[in-house]
Structure formats: C-alpha cells, structure tokens
C-alpha cells in the first residue's frame, strides 16, 4: 500500500512538472519548484533505465576545454577574499613554493566540490531521470547527484565533497552543495573553504557539444562576497569508451605491487 502511494506521489509530481512545462514552454522556470519530497518520490517512480528525454542532453563523455589550476571569477579576476582568506592562501602558496605543500590531494584525499570538476582527462555524465552520475577517469572519482530538488541539510555529517542535490530548471542542471568538512582546497593554488561554504553549480549546454559549469561559491569566512567561476568542457566522441581505472594510491605504495600467481 505504502509503495503504491509512493508511486502515485512520484508520478503526480512529474506529471505536474510536465504540465508546467507545457504551460510555460520550459520545465520549472523558477528554481525550487520541485519540492524535495516530490522529487524524491519521482525518483522512486522512475529509477531510470531509460535515457532522460525531457532535459538537455548533457549525458556522454566530456573533457575540459583547458586545464585550470587557479579558479578565477567569470571576468577573469582573483576571487574577492576576506583578510582571513588571503592569509590562508598566502600560507599555502608559500608551502607549495617551499615544496612542503599540504594539499590534501597529494595524500589522495578526494578533491571535493568544486575541485573535482578541475580534474584533467575525460569524464562521463550519465543522465537518467532520477539521477546524474559523474564519473571521472582521473582517480576514478565519482559524483552521485540524486535529483532530489533544492538541497535541504539536516544534521549532515561534514563530507569532503559536501552533500549534493540536483534539479533541472529552464537553463539546465542545477547542483547545490553544502555540508563540507572545510579541509579541501578549491583549486591548485590553495583557495580556501570553510565548513559553511555553499556551492551552486549551473550546468548548461552553450552549444550541443560544449558544456558550461558556472560555479558560485558563497563562504563569508574566506570570501567578501559570493563569486562565480566558469569552466567549459568539450564533448568527446565514442559511446563505448572505457574510463581507465586510475588509482591515486598506487604512487604512495610502500613497495610496488606484484602479481600473486607464479609466472608460467
């Protein structure tokens, strides 16, 4: 019985969303129209075997248009930092120069958000109705973005990558994240984050084969106002492409791995 109700709510939510699309010419022109509960129920109803036909096709293989070590604002400027932010970044840059960097990525810790989007090499976006999954060849990183609507955090454990929730709006895909542990750097130059950081990413196709990620960082401890960076990715051909398993920890091993079986 409960199951039937869940299916029912989910379907109503999606039908309502589809109806909204027909009236407005685009699905949910206002962000946050899909309430978390309804979207979650919709996710239950459509766990997603079929390709997502409703939304722009961001699924497939991509790679960065250019490698980015330092995040800057959309107009190419240094992010607006507080004194504390400047101090911490200066300290990190000095450590990098002294070859004493404490970049968590050097210990194979996860790049978190948004730094995983700075990963070099190909990545895949898997687009299904209930979920967006991002798979990076680089370190075999993975992002699970359940399309549960605007993020609502209650007693969330602090995570390196934060907690995500996604939804579609008229422009494309929105991913909200918060609940960070504050330990990761935002980029290779040590831009800081605090546990109170909030990140909103807006993915959209600027052409059929170009994907844009506008990343807005809000973190009053280290930044004097919210700022936005822009990353772009180019579509890669090749359905059936395999993302090679790149494992970060191999280079930290005490001794090289050897196969167990004796040679024939």
């Amino acid at each position, binding site marked *: 019985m409960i199951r039937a109700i*869940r299916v029912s709510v989910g*379907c*109503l939510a999606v039908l309502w969303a589809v109806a909204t699309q*027909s009236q407005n010419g685009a699905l949910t022109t206002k962000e946050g129209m899909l309430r978390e509960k309804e979207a979650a129920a919709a996710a239950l109803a459509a766990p*997603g075997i079929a390709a997502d036909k409703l939304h722009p096709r961001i699924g497939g293989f991509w790679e960065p248009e250019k490698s980015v070590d330092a995040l800057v604002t959309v107009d190419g400027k240094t992010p607006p930092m507080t004194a504390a932010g400047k101090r911490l970044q200066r300290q990190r840059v000095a450590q990098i120069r002294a070859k004493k960097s404490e970049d968590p990525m050097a210990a194979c810790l996860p790049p978190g958000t948004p730094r995983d989007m700075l990963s070099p090499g190909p990545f895949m976006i898997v687009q299904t109705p209930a979920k967006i999954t991002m798979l990076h060849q680089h370190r075999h990183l*993975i992002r699970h973005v359940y399309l549960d609507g605007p993020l609502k955090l209650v007693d969330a454990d602090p995570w390196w990558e934060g907690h995500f929730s996604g939804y579609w709006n008229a422009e494309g895909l929105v991913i909200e994240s918060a609940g960070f542990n504050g330990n990761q750097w935002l980029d290779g130059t040590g831009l800081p984050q605090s546990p109170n950081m909030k990140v909103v990413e807006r993915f959209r196709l600027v052409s059929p084969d170009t994907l844009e990620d506008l990343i807005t960082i809000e973190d009053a401890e280290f930044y004097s106002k919210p700022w936005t960076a822009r990353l772009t990715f180019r579509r890669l051909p090749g359905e059936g492409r395999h993302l090679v*398993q790149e494992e970060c920890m191999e280079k*930290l*091993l*005490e001794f090289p791995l050897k196969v167990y079986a004796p040679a024939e």
Partner: protein
Amino acid sequence: MTSAEKEHTHRSHSVLASVGLLAGLTLLSATAVAQRAPPPPAVVTGDAARRDVRVATDIPNISGVWVALTCNRSNSPADGGSTPFLPWARQFFENRAAAEAAGKPLFDPSANCLPGGVPRIISSPYPIDIVQTPDLTLILTETLHEFRMIHMDGKPKPADFKPSYFGYSTGHWDGDTLVVETTGLNGYTQVDEEGRPKSSDMRVVERYQKRAPNILDVTYTLYDPRTYSRPWSGHAQFKWAPEMRLSEYICEENNRNKPDASGKLRMGVEQ
C-alpha cells in the same frame, strides 16, 4: 487491445500514472500531457509491487540502490565444498592465515585503499547503486566510492586494454538475468580478505537476477586454471533500498601515517 494494454487495465491509477510518466516524456505532446490523461502506450508496462518500470525492450530494470545482505570475509564456494586450490594457491592462503594468526598480517593492496578487484567488490558490506543505460550498466559502489563500467554494446575488450582492478566487463541479458563477463584483471588482489588468490588470467562471470521484486541475487563463477583446479562459484545478495543515498567513503582518511620524505606510506608489513 494488446496484451500489454489489457494488463494495464488491471492496475491502479497510480501505476497508470507511473507508466504514463515515462511514456509521456517520450511520446506524448505537451498538450496531451497537460490534459493529464495520457493513455499508456502498449510498449511500456509497470509493476506496482516492484515500484519500477519495465521498458518496451525486454531489459529488466535492476537500477537503484541496493544494500548488501551478504558480506563475506571468506568467499568460499557457495556449494559448501572446499576451495579447489592449486598447490601454490593453497600455500599462499595458508601463509597468510598463519601470518594473521601470529598478529603479523601480510600486505594487501586494499589496506592501502586500493580496490579489492572483482569479485571481492561484490562481497563488500556497503550499498551499491546500479544505473542502466542502453549501452552501459554501471555498478557504483559505496566501497571506495568506485564505479564499474559494464559495456552492453556487444563489442569485445579492446586489444590494448591494460589490466586493472576491475578489469574490462561486458554484459548481456540472458532472459531475466544480467550476465557480466570480466577479464583484464590485474592479479594484484585477492578473491577475499581471507586470502584466496587469483591470477591475471582469471575470468569472472557474474549473474545478476531478481529473486524477488526487492531481492537481487548475484552468483559469480571464477575461472582461473592458473590458481584453481576447477571453476567455482560464490554468492552475494542485495535488498533494494530506493530511499537510500550512497555515502561518501574515504579510505584515505584512515591512513594514520603520512607519506614520508620519499612520499611513501610505510605500513610496517611484509608483502
């Protein structure tokens, strides 16, 4: 009326809505949907008990989050028989057991946060999330925050494939069973924590089948004539948990040691 349409007439409105949802996304005009009376097309059937949707193609839907009901430190043969070790493999297994009993466990790549490989990943106690697309079945594991790509496009493993922890997997449907064949494994990992070894020649055939609407059975058969005198099979089982979300999983945070001056993690164990 087709048999599929007849089937629909016996289902509740909620299921009709569910079916209409997928159909509506692809087939109906926006106007028709706005009238909220999408007739379900014959190509799609749903099943209220399963809370999922069966698409026109005869591909069963096994997508979603599943929690492990089995967790085997020791992956011994599911038929209760003894493990058909070849001599070197038995020696390897017994050496590890003796070292562990003496409180001096030998090196295992998974202790360095490297994947346990196939099939060990299947007997992990943490949830998996299966995502199905026409060309690819993905098994996303909470364990190590990893992913396996299972190629459903019918193409063989590329000739230049470099052996890896999860190898190269191809899949096809045999009736209601997803059959996954994996080769290209790197031979660095063990079948289980207890220390059953494998060679890089191991071929693993996994069979994923819903035993009940919410229960997924996985039987894996290991073919490795360099390690075992005959093929043998293990078993894992999962329960569907659609409300569950995969958690972050950071093995590296448990590294009590920092890399030393040469950049290596010293664990004080022998290989």
